[in-house]
C-alpha cells in the first residue's frame, strides 16, 4: 500500500486515489513532420521503465485533484511529490 501525500489533504492511503498512468511526452509541434514510425511510437507505445516514473494520481475519494509524483516502479518508493497538476 502506498501512502501518497496530497498537497491539499496531506498523506492519504493509495486506495483513495485512482492511478492516472505515466506522464506522457508533449505532443509534437508538427506531427506531419514525423516519420510514421515516430508518430505511432508517440501515440501508442508507452515507456515501461524499471525505475523512477513520473505519474499522475487522481484523488477521487478525497479533494478531487490530480497529483503528480515520481515513483520507483521497482521499489515502490515515492521519490518526490510536487503537487497538483492543473494542466
Amino acid at each position, binding site marked *: 500500500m502506498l501512502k501518497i501525500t496530497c498537497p491539499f489533504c496531506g498523506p492519504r492511503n493509495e*486506495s*483513495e486515489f485512482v492511478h492516472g498512468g505515466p506522464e506522457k511526452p508533449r505532443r509534437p509541434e508538427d506531427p506531419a513532420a514525423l516519420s510514421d514510425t515516430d508518430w505511432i511510437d508517440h501515440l501508442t507505445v508507452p515507456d515501461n521503465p524499471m525505475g523512477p516514473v513520473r505519474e499522475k494520481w487522481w484523488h477521487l475519494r478525497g*479533494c478531487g485533484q490530480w497529483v503528480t509524483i515520481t515513483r520507483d516502479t521497482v521499489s515502490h518508493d515515492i521519490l518526490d511529490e510536487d503537487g497538483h497538476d492543473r494542466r
Partner: protein
Amino acid sequence: MSYAVTIRRQDLSALVDMRGEARQIAALLAGLDLALPDAPNTAAEAGDRAVYWLGPEHWLLRAPIAEEDALLAGLHKDPLPPEISLVLVSDAYAFFEISGAEAAEVMAVASPLDLHASVFPAKGSAFTEAFGLKALVVRRGDGFELAVDRSLGDMTEDYLNRVVAF
C-alpha cells in the same frame, strides 16, 4: 464484544455544494453571516450552520433542512458570478452520527483516514473513504459524522450496525 457507541442515521440536511474563487464564495457567505474555514479539511461553524472546506475551491454549506429556503435566499445574487457554482445537494447525502467512547474504534474499521486528534482535530472535515465508498467524515462532540451518497445509505447503515454488533 461490542463497541460502546451509538449509531444514528440523521434526517436530511440542507446542503449547498459551492465551488469557485474563495473571495467570491466568501462574499456570498457574508450574506448569511458565515465565514470560510481557515484551514483545508476543517469546518467553520456558526450556530447550527457549518461550512466544510473539502478541496481547492470547493466547500459544502450545511444547515438544518428547515433552513433550506433561507439559505438559498441568503445566497441569491443576480447575476451570480460565472466563475462560481452553487448546487443544492440536500438529497444527495445520508449522514450518520457515530458517538460514544469508542467512536474512533468504529471509524477505524470503516475508514483508513488517520483520525487522531493531532491530525484530524476538532472541526476536522474531509472527504475520504469508508467501507470502500467515497465518504465525508466530520469530527463532532464525542464522535464523528459520516456521510455517503444517499443511494448507499441503507448499505452503509447495515455495515455500521455489523461493526457495532461484532
